């Protein structure tokens, strides 16, 4: 089901994968950049805060400090009596609790205690110079001792945590604050509103993601262009294949680039198409030949019968006609059985079940039968030298091989000639050799010898009722036994046909 939801088109699949990949990479990149940018912005802010906090610390360590209007000096961090703070003051608020307007009022009440470092530092937090910074100081008992004018109304005392000698940072809403606890737990704080910075960061992020989207679009466009280009040869190939399957068998794929993978594929396909076309041509030729061979006897039978029936005849004439028709029918039967043999051999079944066969005696028997059938008709001497040759084979098919080869040899050997049949076992192979001293086969005929309906001696083969299928059947049977066949011939001197089969020594 999930596969079906996925588009079938290769181009769309590639495009989808590309989009997913691009999306992943770009998102990762944008998120990383955005995070890094944010971190570096906060670092910058924190550095500014800490620089100011350090100034504040230094100024307090110098001995000066904020003084309330009541003239009560506030002890600096150097003071040895942490509990010695203002007498008669209001009870200290809870640490971390909100600083009320009272506290701010106190801050406002504070006055510069003269020209010293503290005053100078404090003056930096005046609204005109503060650049958005604000500062606050709490006394060790948690009282807000100082508050710069820009400080937000709600400014709680930071929670103390052990970090001796180091400043700490906190983010509170839209405020970023650096604070420091002195030894007697007085707290110094410098803060800044983040609003402007957060706006800047957000604007940067927007620009970053817009750029990312743009790159994504460009990537998709480029990917579409590339996949189109990459797929075009495939489309050419499929178009050519479609034309060929529509029956234009001689069409071929135009090979653009031999070096590329698709060019090589096109080359391989073209070679395949060549083979297929040749096979089709052979098949067509075979069908045409077979039908020609069947039509001729049919024509004879029809014409004989119609001639004879055209008027009354003598018994002798009828007899002749029937004999002619019988001869033709037998010729057709021979052809039909040869065609059937070939069809069976072409089949997946091949020759049928194989068993262990000794080619030697099989060959001798077949030759003996052939000789007795031909009788005195043939005056060719047949010599049989059949040694044991055990192989795995189908006996009937092997008999046919011997019969076809020997009758072929007899047919083309003049009366005073000789045909020699030999079987041997050598080096794991079984061989059958049929040698004759006949007229031989012309060199140009040799490569076609095993083609169906091929007759080397055309006129003679036809008139003697041979179809040119005998050797084709032999070849098919030998192939089915995984054997080899070889023909050597010299015109006028004779022909030697050698068949080799893999031996079966058991």
């Amino acid at each position: 089901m999930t596969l079906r939801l996925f588009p079938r088109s290769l181009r769309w699949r590639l495009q989808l994968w590309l989009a997913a990949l691009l999306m992943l990479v770009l998102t990762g990149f944008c998120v990383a950049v955005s995070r890094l940018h944010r971190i570096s912005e906060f670092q910058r802010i924190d550095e500014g805060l800490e620089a100011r906090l350090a100034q504040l610390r230094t100024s307090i360590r110098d001995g000066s400090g904020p003084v309330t209007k009541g003239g009560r000096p506030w002890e600096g961090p150097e003071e040895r009596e942490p509990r010695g703070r203002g007498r008669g003051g209001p009870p200290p608020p809870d640490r971390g609790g909100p600083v009320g307007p009272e506290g701010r009022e106190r801050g406002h009440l504070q006055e510069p205690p003269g020209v010293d470092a503290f005053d100078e530092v404090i003056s930096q937090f005046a609204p005109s110079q503060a650049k958005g910074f604000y500062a606050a100081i709490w006394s060790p008992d948690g009282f807000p001792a100082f508050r710069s004018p820009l400080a937000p109304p709600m400014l709680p005392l930071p929670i103390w945590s052990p970090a001796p000698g180091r400043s700490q940072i906190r983010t509170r809403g839209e405020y970023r604050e650096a604070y420091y606890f002195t030894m007697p737990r007085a707290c110094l704080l410098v803060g800044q509103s983040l609003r402007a910075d957060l706006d800047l960061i957000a604007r940067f992020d927007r620009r970053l993601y817009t750029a990312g989207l743009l790159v994504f679009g460009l990537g998709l466009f480029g990917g579409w262009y590339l996949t189109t280009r990459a797929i075009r040869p495939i489309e050419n190939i499929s178009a050519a294949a479609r034309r060929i399957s529509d029956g234009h068998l001689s069409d071929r794929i135009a090979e653009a680039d031999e070096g590329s993978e698709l060019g090589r594929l096109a080359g391989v396909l073209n070679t395949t198409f060549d083979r297929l076309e040749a096979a089709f041509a052979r098949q067509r030729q075979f069908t045409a030949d077979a039908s020609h061979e069947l039509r001729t006897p049919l024509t004879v039978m029809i014409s004989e019968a119609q001639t004879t029936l055209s008027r009354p005849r003598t018994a002798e004439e009828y007899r002749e006609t029937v004999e002619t028709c019988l001869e033709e029918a037998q010729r057709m039967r021979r052809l039909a059985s040869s065609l059937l043999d070939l069809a069976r051999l072409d089949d997946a079944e091949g020759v049928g079940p194989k068993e262990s066969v000794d080619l030697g005696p099989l060959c001798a028997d077949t030759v003996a039968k052939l000789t007795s059938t031909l009788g005195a008709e043939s005056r060719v001497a047949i010599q049989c030298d059949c040694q044991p040759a055990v192989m795995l084979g189908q006996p009937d098919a092997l008999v046919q091989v011997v019969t076809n080869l020997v009758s072929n040899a007899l047919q083309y050997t003049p009366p005073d000639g000789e045909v020699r049949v030999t079987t041997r076992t050598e080096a794991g192979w079984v061989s059958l050799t049929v040698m004759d001293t006949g007229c031989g086969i012309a060199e140009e005929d040799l490569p076609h010898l095993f083609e169906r309906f091929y007759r080397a001696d055309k006129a003679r083969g036809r008139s003697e009722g041979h179809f040119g299928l005998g050797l084709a059947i032999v070849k098919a049977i030998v192939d089915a036994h995984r054997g080899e066949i070889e023909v050597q011939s010299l015109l006028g001197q004779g022909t030697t046909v050698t068949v080799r089969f893999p031996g079966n020594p058991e």
Partner: protein
Amino acid sequence: MRLLVVEDDPRLLKSLTRALREAGYAVDSAADGTEGLFKAESADYDVILLDVMMPGLDGWSVLDRLRKKKSTPVLLLTARGATSDRVRGLDAGADDYLPKPFDLPELLARVRALIRRSTGQSTSRLELGDVVLDMRSKTVELAGRPIPLTPREYAILEYLALHRGEVVTRSTLYEHLFDESEDTLSNLLDVHVFSIRKKLGAEVIVTRRGQGYLVEP
């Protein structure tokens, strides 16, 4: 009418020759293309029946070479019955095309049609005054009464009637009425013509002394 059959299968050749002879034609036979071409070029046949698929010189080549010299009507006989084969055959100069296996009556009808066409005749009835020849049944009527003629007599009359108005020499008549296997006597022709005149009237065939015979238009 004299025909030539060129066919490489000996049995079919024999059978066709026999059938055509029975139909009243003088028939020569050739067992391959080379022999067929030689015979076709050396004698004037009325129709040539030519097999296409032959070893050696095939039907196409025979037709091709023959057409350079003669326009003898050619009927192609072949096992290849596809339209493209018929078109090729007719375009190559064949006058008709008959795929195997064929029916003998059709073959004979086509041969008759070819003969008719080559002599400019449109029907199979030939009328010479009172005498009417039916080329289909090979019978003759005189004033509506059937007159029995021997096949040879009919053949002579048919040939002369198809070439009406032409003086046909004795040698031409011989060539078209007797096949290569027959030994003809020189006065045999006169015997047949005498017999025809006796049956159909003296005026049906005119003798031109020293030239030949004539059926007047």
